[in-house]
């Protein structure tokens, strides 16, 4: 039976206090903090994190599809799902697709995955949703938005932890929030109009439509997982539908993360699953040019996935304060940082293509003769010189430690001048590699420090974004 068999999430390490934004503008603060992607992150890298978090410990060979949903993908033309799938080291013979444009893109991808698995065209599809929307400086969106990604594995190969019982869609053509193809910032019409005739009206139609179809009333639902642009609109919706906001409403994650676009409904679902009990009925609804309501049932299997490193709770707690609002502007490219010393390298589509197995999949080579592990892949073994006698091994999920390091003040951009340069040693075969550390306080770097791998956007060159792996302190 098709259902969700695993979940994953990613929230960037950096959090910006809303008071800091308000202080910069001399405006009011809505309180709490929002997540902010680092200057080497984007929706693809966040989706990779969520995908790996979701697939961690599972057999990745069994996955035969990956969907990527985002309203803020790094490319307008060029698939991102293929990049996420490769970085997550899925095999090439899989279905991939990008879902975009709508805030409902995340639930649209989920629905498509369920259909693909139910119809038998795929056995196991990994759904990722990731967003990094930008509000106009000083706007309420700038405070309310957050950056995050979520992932769900839809499969019929194992007993599901959650089954999809029913759904109810509403399509609604209107301008409430939008961006033109050339826009950086989210535009919107007057708040009172878009909440009343956009959010409330359409969510109500979808949710009540679903409940009527299934013969349910509010008291039958264990958790109402309602996407909302604001806490107030979420509570108004709950009240109108007869849900108790205190006990039934899933936390909007606005005080500590922010509204993460098309990823948000799935992110809230993941948070709900971390607390869910067998037999719980969950009602999830997402909004964007209409609404999608889903009825989900939690199975006994839920207990088996708890307690591992998956989900939202851990990454909400793992955080560092972003030192200033200016830094947020710079990380998002709204201020232009001064580059560090000029690059001596020349990106090329050909090079990226040839290097894809180690640069994107993070494969090393393990010598079949002597067992030496290299990263990147070495055709001739350093230790025994065996030629082309190796198997590729994945290092992106392997533990490593700092062997030696330096804190380089020349190599970084002006908004992040210090680059920790490292020699790391992996537990697997004691493979060594040069790496850069990200998401850290340079002062905490030390020999012997445990690190984990993270997929990042390295720099822009030759008209392309170039991605590669860095390491970070274990989160």
């Amino acid at each position, binding site marked *: 039976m098709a259902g969700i068999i695993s979940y994953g999430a990613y929230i960037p390490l950096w959090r910006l206090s809303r008071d800091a934004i308000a202080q910069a503008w001399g405006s009011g603060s809505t309180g709490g903090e929002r997540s902010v992607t680092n200057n080497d992150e984007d929706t693809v890298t966040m989706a990779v994190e969520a995908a790996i978090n979701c697939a961690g410990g599972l057999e990745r060979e069994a996955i035969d599809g990956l969907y990527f949903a985002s309203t803020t993908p790094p490319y307008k033309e060029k698939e991102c799902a293929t990049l996420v799938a490769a970085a997550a080291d899925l095999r090439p013979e899989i279905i991939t697709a990008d879902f975009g444009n709508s805030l409902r893109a995340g639930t649209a991808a989920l629905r498509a995955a369920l259909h693909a698995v139910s119809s038998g065209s795929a056995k196991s599809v990994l759904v990722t949703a990731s967003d990094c929307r930008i509000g106009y400086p000083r706007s309420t969106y700038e405070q309310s938005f957050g950056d995050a990604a979520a992932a769900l594995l839809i499969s019929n190969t194992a007993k599901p932890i959650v089954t999809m019982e029913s759904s109810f869609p509403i399509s609604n053509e209107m301008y409430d929030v939008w961006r033109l193809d050339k826009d950086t910032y989210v535009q919107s019409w007057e708040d009172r109009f878009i909440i009343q005739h956009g959010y409330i009206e359409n969510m109500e139609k979808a949710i009540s439509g679903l409940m009527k179809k299934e013969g349910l009333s509010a008291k039958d639902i264990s958790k109402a997982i309602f996407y909302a642009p604001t806490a107030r609109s979420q509570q108004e919706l709950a009240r109108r539908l007869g849900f108790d906001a205190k006990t039934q409403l899933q936390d909007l994650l606005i005080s500590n993360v922010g509204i993460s676009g098309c990823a948000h409904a799935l992110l809230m679902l993941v948070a709900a699953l971390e607390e869910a009990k067998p037999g719980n009925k969950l009602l999830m609804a997402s909004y964007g040019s209409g609404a999608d309501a889903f009825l989900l049932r939690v199975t006994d299997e839920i207990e088996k996935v708890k307690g591992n490193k998956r989900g939202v709770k851990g990454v909400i707690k793992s955080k560092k304060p972003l030192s200033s609002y200016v830094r947020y502007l710079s990380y998002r490219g709204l201020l232009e940082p001064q580059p*560090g*010393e*000029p*690059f*001596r*390298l*020349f*990106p*090329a589509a050909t*090079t*990226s293509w040839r*290097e894809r197995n180690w*640069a994107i999949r993070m494969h090393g080579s393990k010598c079949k003769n002597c067992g*030496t*592990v*290299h*990263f*990147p892949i*070495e055709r001739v073994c*350093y*230790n025994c010189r065996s030629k082309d006698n190796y198997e590729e091994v994945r290092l992106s999920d392997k533990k490593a430690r700092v*062997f*030696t*390091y*330096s*804190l*380089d*003040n*020349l*190599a*970084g951009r002006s908004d992040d001048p210090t*680059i920790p*340069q*490292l*020699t790391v040693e992996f537990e697997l*075969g*004691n*493979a*060594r*590699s*040069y790496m*850069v550390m990200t998401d850290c306080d*340079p002062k905490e770097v030390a*020999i012997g420090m445990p690190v984990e791998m993270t997929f990042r956007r*390295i*720099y822009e*060159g030759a008209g392309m974004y*170039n*991605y*590669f792996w860095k390491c970070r302190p274990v989160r």
Partner: protein
Amino acid sequence: MESIKDKVAIIGMGCSKFGERWDAGIDDMVIESAYEAYEDAGIDPKDIQACWYGTVTQPLIGMGCTNLAEPLKLHGIPMTRVENWCCTGHEALRNACLGVASGMYDLVLALGAEKLKDTGFPGLGTGRGMSPVLEARRTAPGSFAMVATRYFYTYGLSPEEGKRTIGKIAVKSHYNGSMCPKAHFRNKITLEQVMNAPIIAWPLGLFDCCGNSDGSAAAIIVPALEARKYRDDPIYIKGLGMSFSALLPQNRPGFDWLHFEELVNSSRQAYEQAGVTNPREQIDIAEVHDCFSSTELIIYENFRFSPEGKAKEDIDSGFFELTGGLPVNTDGGLKCFGHPVGASGLRMTYEVYKQLQGKAQSPERQLKNVRLGLSHTFGGPPQTSAVAILGKELGYP
């Protein structure tokens, strides 16, 4: 394998003023060093039968020997450009020596030159290697600082103790460089200045990093037995070591960051050719690759100047100072004389050559009883090292 010992000799050398040569292009500096070498050797440019030209930071599609042939108007003879990271100057010298030793040429020019100060920024730039992403943020200071970090860790030096130890190397280099008219930096500094300087790549501060300089240096090489026809005090090549390692140290399985195979191998080769069995006692002057003070520290041990883990004791006792048992970087080294990459190996050899002849610029720097000297460069991530041993007497040691 034969040894190069006493097969070839240097009969003339030249070295341009090093520094931020806003006034001079690479052509001007090539002319400066070449004409000093011609005059020193007492030769005419038409006597030159072949050339080896070392330069590193040329445009992507290369420059060949255009920057050598055109300013010097050398014409119709074999000319080869060599490039091997920071060992480039030594590689020009080594290949020129081999050309003469082969018997094919009787008089050749080895010249290295580099123009770094037309880039608009102070360092060597960020990003190394062939991959667009793998080493996208790697820099020279960031790489060599890893040597210091691991050394301090291994020998239990606190960052403060470690920085003071390598800082003393920088103080020595500035003292020595202050007496060299052609050096880039000629200011004396104190250990407190070193300790308080801005950090370039932790643990290395500003004074732990060498000068980013323009400059050129040149040598005229002839068969050893012909040398005294040109001058009374030719300097003989005693050994030429060179070693390249199979992986950058960051990626080398099991590498301890204390014993650089390229340093150990290149010095061993040169010692064996020269007949040096106890370098600490037998070498009278050494010009080693102090791109960063941490590099000079590790070289002391890898070259067997100091026992393993004991370089600190020798630094503290002043063993490598001008008045010490083995003066190192008597002209200020890369730190103060400057490091125009392709010229450096020949500039270091120039200092050894002059000291062996008793003709060090500024007589107060002249060492006494100098019979055997060593020059050395160490380059890449690092990955390669070249050593030349020179002496003033045939048959010694």
